[in-house]
């Protein structure tokens, strides 16, 4: 009896969580324009999606910003994690706290704060400002995923490499970098995922007609719900799901930190 209760409770929870997405996905294949009446299977909205210039341009910006921002934040985060791993005591705790704060900070606050800063400094809102914003919010996640790798890396490992005849540069390339690489890759994937699914911060930090996919969906939705939006949202959902799956698989293999998982889910 209690087993049955447990199972049905779990079922209810998952229904509650995934029913909206299921509806979204199902109606993205609907033949008619209606988002409430099913009138047959069709891929026409997906086809239309790839003929819409606005959406293709948003896709380009989304991918360009995700790629560039995750590359830059991976490099920055890795160096920061190295610095943090060398720190000791109370100051390290302080810096880690400073690092974690933006993760917990509401996106809306981060977004408006960045916008105010850009306006204050007279920077024109557009591609560059959105890129900088994405680097800003991704870097702490990279730090969190690379830091444990530096912790695992005993200082003896570097000594051992030098002892066996490796110059410091050779030891860095052949020992240190490969040992922390799993954390770096997880950090990169995480930054990439976060960038793709961000809406709030992007919304406040872009301008001049530069929109990413989530902003594009938002402005389309304001003009009325079209099945095209369903199709686009479905594709984004699947992309993020796939990336998340890869990250979690890596985390299970001990390739990085598991912590920000919940937050990534919440952001979706």
């Amino acid at each position: 009896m209690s087993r049955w209760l447990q199972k049905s409770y779990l079922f209810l929870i998952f229904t509650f969580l995934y029913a909206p997405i299921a509806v979204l996905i199902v109606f993205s294949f609907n033949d008619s324009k209606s988002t409430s009446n099913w009138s047959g299977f069709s891929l026409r909205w997906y086809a239309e999606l790839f003929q819409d210039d606005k959406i293709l341009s948003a896709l380009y910006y989304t991918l360009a910003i995700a790629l560039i921002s995750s590359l830059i934040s991976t490099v920055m985060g890795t160096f920061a994690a190295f610095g943090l791993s060398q720190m000791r005591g109370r100051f390290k705790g302080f810096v880690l706290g400073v690092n974690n704060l933006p993760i917990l900070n509401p996106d809306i606050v981060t977004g408006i704060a960045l916008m105010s800063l850009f306006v204050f400094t007279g920077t024109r809102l557009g591609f560059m400002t959105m890129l900088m914003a994405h680097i800003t919010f991704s870097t702490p996640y990279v730090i969190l995923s690379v830091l444990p790798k530096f912790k695992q890396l005993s200082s003896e490992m570097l000594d051992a490499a030098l002892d066996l005849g490796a110059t410091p540069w050779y030891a860095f390339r052949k020992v240190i970098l490969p040992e922390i690489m799993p954390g770096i890759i997880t950090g990169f994937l995480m930054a990439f995922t976060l960038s793709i699914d961000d809406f709030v911060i992007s919304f406040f930090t872009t301008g001049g007609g530069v929109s990413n996919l989530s902003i594009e969906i938002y402005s389309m939705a304001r003009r009325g719900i079209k099945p095209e939006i369903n199709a686009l949202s479905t594709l984004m959902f699947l992309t993020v799901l796939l990336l998340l799956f890869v990250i979690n698989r890596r985390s299970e293999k001990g390739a990085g930190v598991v912590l920000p998982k919940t937050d990534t889910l919440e952001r979706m």
Partner: protein
Amino acid sequence: MIQVNHLVKVFGEDRVVDDISFHVDSREFMTILGPSGCGKTTTLRMIGGFETPTQGDILFEGKSIIQVPPYERPVNTIFQRYALFTHLNIFENIAFGLRIKKTDENEIKRRVARMLELVNLTGFEKRAVSSLSGGQQQRIAIARALVNEPKVLLLDEPLGALDLKLRKEMQLELKYMQQDLGITFIYVTHDQEEALTMSNRIIVMNHGRIQQTGTPQDIYNEPANAFVADFIGESNLIPGVMKEDYWVEFAGRTFPCLDAGFSQNESVDVVIRPEDIDLVAPGEGLLHGVVDSALFKGVHYEMVVLVDGREWLVHSTDLAPEDSEVGLRITPDDIHIMKKSAAPVHEGAPFKEAGEAAVHA
């Protein structure tokens, strides 16, 4: 082969290594023994090139090496926690040093195979580091160092993380390897038994200073001071007075002994090993007391005997039950007499010379 001259290492305010000098001969198994924080690992790291001495010099075959970076020193190190490269398989771990030297691929294969044979892990080439037990990882660390054919191998508590049985096995294996390959070993440990078992010579360190240098027999039988006596095995340490040459007074009695050259009525420390004390019938022997506790230790019984309120530790294969009266017999060659040291741990210099003299004799 290696000569260490007046080596000093200061970390902040702390003189971790405080003016030590010693030499290690070719093919010798030299152990640096001491409690944690005594400076033994720092000394080893200075020889390996991972720490720069504050003062002093290290000579290798007569040439100073303190300016030589670790990757150009003719020594290799076995680290406490093995420090294997987890992103490489066993073959590549062992081949690491050879690849740096751009050794021919066939030569690498041949030498790695030979090393795996030496450490009894043939067939492990493709295995991941994480799939190996602690003992196996340690063997790989040894193979990884030895494949470079170093003239001197430095070992920093290499068996510390292993369980007792495995540690004993590895002690023997290391000793055989050292003798077979004819490599000089400098071995750091806090385990006095390990040091006594494996070494040709032992350097006992405490608070950054050498307390005594000598063969295991020297160190055990003729400890240079109270610290060494206490650190190497268990011992009874009793204050005494030299009445005249060959006569020492302690525990209220005067005993014949083998020591001379002290001034009359000079205060001394007397060391008597628990296994050197003979249990005899009450009335026989110069001391007599009551057994306070008796513990079975496997090979022997460990008994605490109270003599006029002082506890004496006695090891014997015979059991004297608790509360029974016993006599203690101590013969002259069981009595080791040492100069009184106000603060034994800092009283390095005179004993060091005594120790060195004993070694060269």
